[in-house]
């Protein structure tokens, strides 16, 4: 069935919007129930149990989906004079349980209040019937909404003592001006649970529309035929607009104003004027929540009014005084004004023009003691103590300010002293690191800006005008410290360089010394080799007699100084090749051009 899901959405819409169960009018679950049950249309009126006591001069006209033929046979004709019978189930001799349920559920849509308050007892059976009949309806689609309907029913019959009276949305007082288009054309108040007709797009309160449709299944504006179950839907935008309207709490005495969507929460939970059940569990009446506090027992016992002698309920005493107490007013003993009795004290203390009062400058010496009206005039211009009084008052005010400032200054001093002490300690502790320069870490300033600048530690014993000044001071301090550190590092650098230079100089000297020694050794070697060559040359000349004289050879060798003397090389090669003759390996390179050098 098409309407089923929509109606379920409809229920969930209200839960989505955070409306409590109590503010889902009973018609919603009924609508769900009704959508879930297939309607049987036949063209006849169904007088039902609910009609029997709530119908007035206008019996339902023939528009309801009538029962299926078998039911028809057992149905009484339309508009039977059974109205006024307050019993459930007496009228509908339902042959099939489900269809009876449907009929009942149908007529529980937006029911009307009874014309005359029915006696307490007969109200129960219809509710019970509804509940039981709903429970027997075998429909899976309703299972989700079961708890809702159950709780709603319990609130309707109010077996639960915590339930409240529902808010009457038509009585709400709107604080903001309400757009005319947000008013229901039927009740002429801003919509409550607006429903929009699908074929023609007109919007009405759910209850207004259903009551109208109950009488005629036509759109109240343009008479388009409508079916209450199918041809209506919700318009979220309208609901949103309505939710934003500012309303005053409907409870008398409460001045709370809020957005309309928040009203139920206030009304249910917080409003002190909401009518709740009497604290006495045996009492069925209601009292304002504020009065129900404390263990005062039943507030619906009668007491005798102290002024008029009437029997009045305890809970209604205040209202009795204000409204219908025979002796509720009294003449003020001083001014003869008529005053509500229990406000007399306030009247005497604040308003009564004849009560004797003292001039307000009495503490400063004025001795005026007269009726209030006289004193008021006196205070306004005549009182000579006025000038002194004002002065004195100003002085007192000044003194208070001074005292306050003194306290603040002493507190500041205290703090300053503490911080100075701390600073000293720190500088003493942190002195060892860099030859007297205090280490930076313990002096990191408190940069927390959440601190008020005045509360921040004061380094120079002074305070700063603003956070900016404070920050600037901190910045300068940090900068100077940075400068110190930089100098220190440069000094260290110099030290290092000097030490390095000193160390390397000694090494250089040693290297140079070694070099010279090596040179001396080389000279010695050359000299020795020359000596040996000379002696060998002399030996050869002695055997062959044809070689140059050794004087020339020695002279050449000395002049070469270990350099590249071709002749000497020649000598050396010869010397070595001669030793080769005895089988020694040749140590020279094959070309033999490189001379042995150091």
């Amino acid at each position, binding site marked *: 069935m098409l309407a089923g899901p929509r109606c379920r959405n409809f229920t969930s819409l209200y839960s989505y919007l955070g409306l409590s169960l109590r503010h889902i009018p*009973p018609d919603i679950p009924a609508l769900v129930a009704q959508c879930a049950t297939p309607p049987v249309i036949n063209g006849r009126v169904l007088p039902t149990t609910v009609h029997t006591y709530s119908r*007035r001069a*206008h019996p339902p006209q023939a528009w309801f989906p009538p029962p299926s033929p078998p039911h028809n046979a057992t149905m009484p004709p339309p508009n039977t004079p059974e109205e006024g019978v307050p019993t459930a189930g007496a009228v509908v001799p339902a042959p099939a349980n489900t269809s009876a349920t449907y009929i009942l559920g149908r007529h529980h849509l937006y029911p*009307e209040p009874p014309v005359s308050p029915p006696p307490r007892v007969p109200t129960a059976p219809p509710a019970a019937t509804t509940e039981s009949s709903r429970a027997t309806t075998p429909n899976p689609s309703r299972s989700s909404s079961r708890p809702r309907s159950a709780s709603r029913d319990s609130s309707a019959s109010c077996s639960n003592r915590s339930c409240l009276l*529902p808010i*009457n949305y038509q009585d709400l007082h709107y604080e903001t001006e309400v757009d005319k288009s947000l008013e229901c054309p039927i009740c002429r108040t801003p919509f409550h649970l607006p429903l929009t007709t699908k074929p023609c797009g007109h919007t009405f309160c759910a209850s207004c529309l259903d009551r109208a449709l109950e*009488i*005629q299944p036509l759109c109240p504006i343009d*008479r388009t035929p409508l079916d209450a179950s199918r041809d209506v839907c919700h318009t979220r935008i309208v609901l949103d607009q309505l939710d934003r309207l500012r309303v005053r709490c409907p409870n008398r005495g409460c001045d709370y104003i809020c957005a309309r969507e928040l009203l139920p929460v206030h009304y249910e939970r917080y409003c002190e004027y909401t009518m709740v059940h009497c604290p006495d569990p045996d009492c069925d009446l*209601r009292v304002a929540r504020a009065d129900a506090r404390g263990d005062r027992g039943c507030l619906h016992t009668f007491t005798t009014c102290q002024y008029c002698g009437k029997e009045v309920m305890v809970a209604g005493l205040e209202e009795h005084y204000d409204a219908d107490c025979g002796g509720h007013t009294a003449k003020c003993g001083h001014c003869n004004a008529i005053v509500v009795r229990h406000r007399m004290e306030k009247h005497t203390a604040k308003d009564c023009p004849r009560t004797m009062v003292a001039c307000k400058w009495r503490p400063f010496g004025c001795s005026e003691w007269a009726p209030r009206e006289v004193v008021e005039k006196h205070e306004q211009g005549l009182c000579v103590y006025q000038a002194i009084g004002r002065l004195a008052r100003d002085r007192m005010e000044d003194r208070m300010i001074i005292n306050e400032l003194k306290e603040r200054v002493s507190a500041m001093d205290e703090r300053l002293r503490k911080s100075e002490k701390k600073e000293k300690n720190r500088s003493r502790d942190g002195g060892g690191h860099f030859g007297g320069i205090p280490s930076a870490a313990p002096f990191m300033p408190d940069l927390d800006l959440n601190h008020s600048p005045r509360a921040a530690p004061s380094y120079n014993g002074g305070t700063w005008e603003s956070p900016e000044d404070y920050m600037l001071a901190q910045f300068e301090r940090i900068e100077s410290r940075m400068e110190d550190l930089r100098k220190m590092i440069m000094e260290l650098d110099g030290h290092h360089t000097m030490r390095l230079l000193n160390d390397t100089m000694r090494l250089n000297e040693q290297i140079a010394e070694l070099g010279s020694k090596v040179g001396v050794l080389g000279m010695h070697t050359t000299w020795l080799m020359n000596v040996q060559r000379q002696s060998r040359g002399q030996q050869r000349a002695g055997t062959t007699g044809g070689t140059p004289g050794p004087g020339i050879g020695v002279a050449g060798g000395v002049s070469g100084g270990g350099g590249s003397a071709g002749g000497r090389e020649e000598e050396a090669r010869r010397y070595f090749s001669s030793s080769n003759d005895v089988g020694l390996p040749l140590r020279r390179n094959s070309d033999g051009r490189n001379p042995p050098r150091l």
Partner: protein
Amino acid sequence: MPYEDTHTSTAGSIPAAKLGGARKAAEPGQNAMKRLQTELMQLMTSPAPGVSAFPSADGNLLSWRATIEGPDDTPYAGLTFKLSFEFPSNYPYAPPTVLFSTPIYHPNVDFSGRICLDILKDKWTAAYNTQTVLLSLQSLLGEPNNASPLNGEAAELWDKNPALFKTKVMDRHKDLEDD
């Protein structure tokens, strides 16, 4: 179950009603009262030309007195007609009973002032209000529905002898002024 509430009403004691006061849930007819108050406010703040209405002097909001000025270019031009409205307790779901207090010679009004107008009978819808009814009656003066007359003679004369119709209208209206 009426969801307005049954507790205060079923408690059945006078103090409950007294205590409840404004906090009490709506009684039957209270919605009608509320609606009539709203309508009255609307009529006061933005009156429609040629029509006016106000609750009768006895303080019963369910009983109103209204006046209609005869539209120009009709036999009723320049005349003023008084009407009485009686609202049922389930107003606006049921139409008010409207009668001409001023005798009027009109095809759809009988000599006791009863009006034959569909929107006051079966064509009534809850969206109508006093002002719309008055405006409808005003236009009915200029455009009678001669197909279903309450005053057959007037219906005939409307078409056949407008001059005589006019005299009859004036005569009948004078009746009241003489009273």
